[in-house]
């Protein structure tokens, strides 16, 4: 059924997998693509800029939009209905039941309840507003996501020098969190991930975030948070976030318990660098992603051969990124590859959620930055993609596993691998160049008997760098090209 399902979808954009010939009008068509992107028609009058996406127990989609609407969408009958309105920049939804959702809006986390069951919320109950507001446009609030113990996590964007703070604001002002340039944290807990206990207490959880527009738990209960390139963030990162840790953007440190006083920025790069936990995965700017968003975990085999991996939206390109992580020397690190790249996907991929149909639903946004609007759906056709299934670091290089049997002759040729490495500077400046760029020598290639795995040695292998690997001329035994030939692996630790 799944294989045939794609045929009936209108407005389909085909993703070309290499140069496979499409044979038109065969009586029993097999899909020639692995993933298809189709667009959901939006109701007239809706801005379509998606701040949040989720599914209700009934299977209806529920989505929040920039002008404060929360809408329900019954895909089967192509019907939109209104659930809530008048919210202030909603950027997250967590479904509690068919008639109750939590929504993260600019000033608070709110419980929306439809108590008379007429389909529209009639109670807007404040769950927590126990954090500071400067009245600055950049103080976005993200989440909530829930851990297995019922704690909720929300992200508080830092305040921007691109705007000002209002004269009237919420929370005490802490001058230590101010900066003259870039983003800052002068009201409580801007730049923090906060934890809301089941008892309703909002506690500071982790600091050092600039613009964390993406929180998500994986299937192992790990909290992942993306951040955006800018001051102190050389290139956009993906952090594995744990309690009490600091992730690098300094002003938020001013709200650390027992902070010794003074501006964190003034403590020196070396000191700040020693405090910070580095990203598990770096997304090289203009190479992999410029503005990564929500991480979602693939929890099934129904969506292709990537069960357990993370998919992350990208605002500035028509792209969704796939992330593979592993633990090396007690630390998490890993690689990103383009997953969907073009093929009808729009820019502005802000929110993603798997639907009951097994498809990945994607909501787009711009909010004045590069992006777009609307909702699209990515469906797996059942055709095995020709792709990197996984990548692992080895003692002298990397090991790649493919989703399908590959043409061994291409894999064996060292000239088909081009690798460079670089690092990103940790500094107050906005973004970083690729520093100390090196071409890396390929030293020996070893292909498995079935052509599904290859190990290649590299020289030098150094830690605290990104290895950008380009694979050329790779194709499957069936003659399909590798769908994505770019891998960016962040080495935090070498395998001893």
């Amino acid at each position: 059924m799944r294989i045939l399902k794609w045929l009936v979808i209108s407005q389909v954009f085909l993703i070309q997998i290499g140069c496979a010939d499409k044979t038109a009008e065969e009586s029993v068509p097999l899909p020639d693509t692995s993933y298809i992107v189709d667009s959901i028609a939006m109701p007239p009058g809706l801005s379509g800029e998606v701040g949040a996406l989720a599914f209700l127990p009934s299977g209806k989609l529920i989505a929040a939009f920039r002008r404060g609407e929360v809408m329900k969408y019954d895909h089967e009958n192509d019907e939109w209905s209104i659930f809530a309105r008048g919210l202030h920049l909603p950027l997250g939804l967590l479904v509690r039941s068919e008639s109750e959702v939590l929504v993260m809006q600019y000033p608070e986390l709110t419980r929306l309840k439809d108590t008379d069951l007429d389909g529209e919320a009639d109670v807007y109950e404040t769950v927590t507003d126990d954090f500071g507001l400067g009245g600055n446009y950049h103080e976005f609030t993200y989440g909530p996501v829930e851990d297995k113990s019922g704690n909720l996590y929300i992200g508080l964007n830092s305040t921007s020098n691109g705007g000002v703070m209002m004269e009237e604001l919420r929370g005490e002002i802490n001058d230590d969190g101010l900066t003259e340039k870039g983003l800052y944290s002068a009201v409580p807990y801007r730049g923090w991930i906060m934890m809301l206990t089941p008892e309703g207490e909002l506690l500071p959880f982790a600091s050092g975030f600039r613009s964390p527009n993406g929180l998500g738990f994986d299937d192992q209960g790990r909290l992942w948070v993306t951040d955006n390139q800018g001051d102190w963030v050389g290139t956009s990162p993906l952090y594995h976030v744990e309690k009490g840790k600091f992730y690098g953007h300094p002003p938020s440190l001013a709200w650390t318990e027992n902070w010794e006083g003074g501006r964190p920025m003034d403590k020196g790069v070396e000191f700040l660098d020693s405090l910070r936990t580095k990203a598990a995965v770096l997304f090289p700017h203009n190479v992999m992603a410029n503005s990564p968003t929500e991480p979602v975990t693939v929890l099934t085999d129904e969506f292709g051969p990537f069960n357990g991996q993370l998919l992350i939206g990208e605002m500035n390109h028509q792209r969704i990124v796939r992330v593979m992580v592993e633990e090396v020397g007690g630390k998490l690190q890993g690689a990103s590859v383009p997953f969907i790249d073009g093929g009808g996907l729009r820019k502005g991929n802000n929110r993603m959620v798997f639907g009951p149909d097994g498809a990945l639903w994607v909501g787009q946004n711009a909010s004045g930055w590069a992006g777009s609007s609307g909702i699209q759906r990515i469906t797996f056709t059942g055709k095995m993609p020709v792709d990197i299934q996984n990548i692992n670091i080895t003692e002298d290089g990397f090991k790649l596993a493919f989703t399908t049997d590959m043409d061994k002759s291409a894999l064996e040729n060292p000239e088909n691998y081009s690798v460079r490495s670089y690092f990103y500077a940790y500094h107050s400046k906005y973004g970083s160049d690729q520093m100390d760029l090196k071409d890396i020598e390929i030293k020996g290639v070893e292909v498995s008997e079935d052509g599904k795995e290859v190990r290649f040695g590299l020289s030098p292998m150094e830690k605290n760098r990104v290895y950008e690997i380009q694979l050329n001329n790779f194709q499957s035994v069936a003659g399909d090209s590798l769908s994505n030939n770019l891998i960016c692996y962040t080495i935090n630790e070498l395998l001893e």
Partner: protein
Amino acid sequence: MKKCVGRRAWPSGIVIFLIPLLFLSTLLPSPGVAQIREIHIKAVGGLQFDKVRFKAEPGERIRIILSNADDMFHNMLITKPGKRESVVEAALNLAELGPQLEFIPKTDDVLWSTRVLAPGEEATLEIKVPSSEGIYPYVCTYPGHGTIMFGAMYVTRGDLPDIKEDVNIPEQRRSASLGAGPNAEDHAHHKEEEVWHPYELVPPYWYRIFMPESGPASIAVNLDDSVFYCWDAGLCRLRYVWEDDFLDISEPWSIKGDARAKVLGEIVYRENQFPLDLGFENQDVAYRGYRLVEGGYPEFYYTINGIDIYELIRPLPGQDGIRRRFRIGSGADKVKLNTQSPDKVNLKSSLGTWTGKELEIKQSSPLEFEVEMSW
């Protein structure tokens, strides 16, 4: 409505004083500097140049000063007429070579270009304007920006086309200047055409949005299309009431930046203090939300030292004003209400006695009372 106060308000003495200066400067030998006309362009939020078009004389020397007032990277390329889109495409195709080339594709179609500017940086282009008349686009080719961040240098001795019909500037800039949004008159004029939501707006309805004269957690309520109020969810109190028309939210909804909604009318009543006094030395007020009650009005819920308070504001039938219902949960021995309202406001209450502007209800809660305020 832009005011031209600056120009008109110049005392003539200053003008007279300036003329000899200008005259003098043309006489002094200051080669190449004084004669060059300067054009200041800013890269601003919302992926825009603040100036979307300007006029230059064929052959004229000009100095373009680009400053990046945004919080992202931007460059600026001036292309041959009609070449904006192909240059943007070529810049995108630079792929991983883009950053080192400052996203400037190697093509003759690019006439002048700046490097990529970080936030706060500035670059200058001194150019001799082409002698052939034409519309020379300028564009930011930083990835993702080129399709919306551009403008046009009109090399002409004639007039510029009507901005409303100028296809050489971004569409959203044809109707309004950046950041200004439609003004009140324009808004009223276009009100019928604008569809802001996928449903009909029937009052009462409201927005949580940045409001003038209020805190960052504000709620603006349209009661009946003629009376409106702003409630501050930070301080848990009414801030002001206005009449005429509701709000212009186009700016906060269309750009990035600190924009607040614009009140489209006259504020007829301001409340400058928290009105309820339950007799505690210190009142700890906490916002808890609202629910929709009969008629679809929001009833705000907050607590004072743990005591539940529900406040409902509705129109006052047949009069200019509002009626407010307070429901106070158990725990208070007496209730006072003082709005410090100006003398023009008539006060009436369903319960308690007035001493001047202060209402006192000498009974312990739970209790419910309504206050009418008319003007």
